């Protein structure tokens, strides 16, 4: 038997959801004894691919084959019985039950119809001992750290499936030491001949533990190569890529900086969320914020907008010290935020487009100072036209719109409040190419109108195209700022890819 043969291979996998192609002709394969990194930004299609592999979703197109034989994965249980085990980022275990229960639930050994706890606990100890884990298997799982819970989840998945292990961002909430323990386990499993799919957004970890890298972008395969043959910079390029189809201005960065930067944040930070940073923004300026997922981009936005209260630092507006403890404070100061997670934090799905657009202004005006329906309609009509929101009727529930149009509705919601400072967190994620270009045009227009903008994006080219200055983040820290001619795709990628402690070239 050649252990170099593909254990699992998918070819031409496609999967669409309403008005949105999550996966489009993706090929992917994994060999026995290989750790294969699967990379991509949020919405690139990683989780959809995993869900297809584990039978949660059925693909619209393409073939999945196991040991060269085409298979149809019916559901998660079928995937397990085929030997495909999965461990998710938010550990899918039962913290209210014992370690042994968690390892064996659904298949506990019984004796006279009752659970044979002694046998189960002995077996649990045996299973864990393979990984040098010596836990009190009778005590609640919640007593152990997330890292240990993660290892237990892996042990369970391997014990049940044993051929392919999919690890979906297992390191997201672990510290350095815990990551080491996890990696030791991964290497051990690799030596045992398992095929391991490792999803992460920490590039260092890819190079530390993975043999092969596959990158997805916008539901398509962006590239696949052995880790040893792929320099980090190329990898970052592969991930952040060039998808931009719009004519890029790029001229803004050559404009002289505004004489006065009206919004100024000094030493703002929040422990366990983002290290203190300084940020100054002037009207008519676009600050791009670049960094990989988990680098502290969204945390920065939440802090500036008062979703999370900062525990240190101060904010100055027009030279006056202000306090931003809640979103209401931020809105009163003329801020707006289009959040990253449109579905859960952005749209009010069942309400109409008109109501969604009016919401922020209404909340700001107060409960009793209702915006008359006539004005709401006029406003909604105006924004539907101005932002080219494609809908047949402004009374339609907003959840029926496509992602790009939903994004425009949220943008309209903030523009209706006539803001001075707008934070856009991944405004172009998960929307089709046409809408993408429109949103970028909009960003340019807004800036020309004198708004201060902070735009967070995974699309580096996009950031380069519209930013006056670019802030680069890594590991929950603001690394520094680029301005003028420094703003180039390669410079930004360099900064992101540089390991901690290394000097940017």
């Amino acid at each position, binding site marked *: 038997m050649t252990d170099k043969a593909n254990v699992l291979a998918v070819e031409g996998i496609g999967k669409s959801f309403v008005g949105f192609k999550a996966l489009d002709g993706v090929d992917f394969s994994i060999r026995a004894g290989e750790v294969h990194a699967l990379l991509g930004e949020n919405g690139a299609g990683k989780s959809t691919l995993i869900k297809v592999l584990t039978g949660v979703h059925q693909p619209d197109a393409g073939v999945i084959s196991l040991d060269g034989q085409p298979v149809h994965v019916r559901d*998660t*249980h079928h995937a*397990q019985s085929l030997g495909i085990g999965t461990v998710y980022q938010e550990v*899918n*275990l*039962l*913290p*209210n*039950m014992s370690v042994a*229960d*968690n390892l064996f*639930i*659904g*298949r*506990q050994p*019984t004796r006279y*119809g*009752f*659970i044979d*706890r002694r046998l189960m606990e002995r077996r649990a100890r045996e299973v864990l001992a393979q990984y040098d884990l010596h836990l009190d298997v009778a*005590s*609640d799982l*919640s*007593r*152990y*750290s*997330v*890292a*240990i819970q993660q290892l237990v989840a892996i042990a*369970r998945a391997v014990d049940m499936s044993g051929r392919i292990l999919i690890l979906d961002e297992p390191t997201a*909430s672990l*510290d350095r030491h*815990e990551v080491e323990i996890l990696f030791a386990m991964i290497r051990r499993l690799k030596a045992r001949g398992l095929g391991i799919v490792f999803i992460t957004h920490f590039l260092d970890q890819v190079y530390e533990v993975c043999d092969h890298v596959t990158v997805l972008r916008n539901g398509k395969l962006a590239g696949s190569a052995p880790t040893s043959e792929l320099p980090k910079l190329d990898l970052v390029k592969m991930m952040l890529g060039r998808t931009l189809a719009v004519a890029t201005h790029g001229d803004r960065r050559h404009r002289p900086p505004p004489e006065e930067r009206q919004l100024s944040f000094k030493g703002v930070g929040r422990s*366990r969320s983002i290290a203190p940073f300084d940020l100054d923004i002037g009207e008519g300026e676009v600050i791009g914020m670049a960094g990989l997922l988990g680098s502290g981009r969204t945390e920065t936005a939440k802090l500036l907008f008062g979703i999370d209260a900062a525990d240190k630092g101060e904010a100055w507006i027009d030279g006056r010290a202000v306090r931003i403890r809640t979103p209401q404070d931020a809105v009163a100061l003329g801020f707006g935020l289009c959040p990253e997670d449109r579905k859960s934090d952005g749209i009010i799905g069942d309400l109409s487009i008109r109501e969604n657009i009016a919401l922020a202004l209404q909340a700001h005006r107060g409960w009793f100072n209702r915006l008359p329906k006539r004005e709401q309609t006029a406003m909604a009509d105006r924004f539907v036209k101005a932002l080219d929101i494609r809908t047949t009727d402004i009374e339609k529930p907003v959840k029926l719109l496509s992602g790009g149009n939903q994004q425009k509705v949220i943008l309209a919601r903030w523009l209706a409040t006539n803001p001075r400072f707008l934070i856009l967190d991944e405004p172009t994620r998960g929307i089709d190419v046409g809408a993408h270009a429109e949103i970028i045009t909009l960003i340019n227009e807004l800036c020309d109108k004198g708004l201060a903008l902070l735009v967070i994006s995974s699309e580096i080219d996009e950031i380069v195209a519209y930013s006056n200055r670019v802030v680069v983040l890594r590991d929950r820290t603001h690394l520094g700022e680029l301005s003028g001619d420094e703003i180039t795709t390669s410079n930004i990628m360099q900064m992101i890819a540089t390991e901690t402690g290394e000097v940017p070239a």
Partner: protein
Amino acid sequence: MNTRLLPLYATLLICLIAYAACLIQFPAMFSTRVAGNLLTDNAFLGIAAVGMTFVILSGGIDLSVGSVIAFTGVLLAVLITQHGVHPLVAFAVALAITTAFGAAMGIIIHYLQVPAFIVTLAGMFLARGMCFVMTTDSIPIDHPFYAALQGVFYRLPGGGRLTFIGCLMVAVFVVGMIIAHFSKFGSYIYAIGGNRSSAELMGVPVARTTIGIYAMSGFLSGLSGIVFSLYTSAGYSLATVGVELDAIAAVVIGGTLLTGGVGYVAGTFVGVIIQGLIQTYIVFDGTLSSWWTKIVVGVLLFSFIGLQRVLVVLSLRRSAAPTGG
């Protein structure tokens, strides 16, 4: 220390302190007579509360309990006195009906994905309505078999009586503990209460278990109805109004998390005893009215819900910390 056990210890402590306080004021409460009566008087509540414990452990709620108890009592009375059915046969019929009734609610809850409280609310109306369909009178049950069962007791030293129904309640608790901690079904209940979607992913048969939980609650409500009819020798359609609330209170005071996943059947027993103690104290005192029970139970309910909320927040904060060790 395991924080999960904290509410249980708190309950035990409160129970002991309450009993001690009662004793200081009324030394006569230290008797097997009081202890025996405590079991007998709360037998029906205890049995229903075991079913409620399972339902709440799974993250659900069953508001139909009180009505099902009354329904069983009326059904037994009608079958035995008006149709001449032997009590044992009547018991079997009643249990079969209530179990099927519970299972039907479980089916609706699981497959229609509607909140348990609204489904069991419909069940509450239905069961209470069926009582009235059968009769609106209070029907006394006079049957030699009933007399025989009521005559079965073990005389404790000191004059207390350990009655049949008191023992039955204790037996139900013991069986409940075995199911909760030693059966696969029990582990599935905890799993569903802990995290339904995780449980599903881990291969727990969620549909079967959910239906089983409500069927069991229906069965135990039926059994509780039998005990209540033995206790009162009658079937009355307006009886046991609001017993579901007493049962829920007993479960929560017994340290079970109302959101599911954490708790002990044994704790519910203590919860039932605490409620019984409060009533006994009121009887001994003679001047207090029975409504103090509700207030004290409400205050305890609030304290335990508050305590659990604090524990949940604390454990969230702990797990949010970057280092787990």
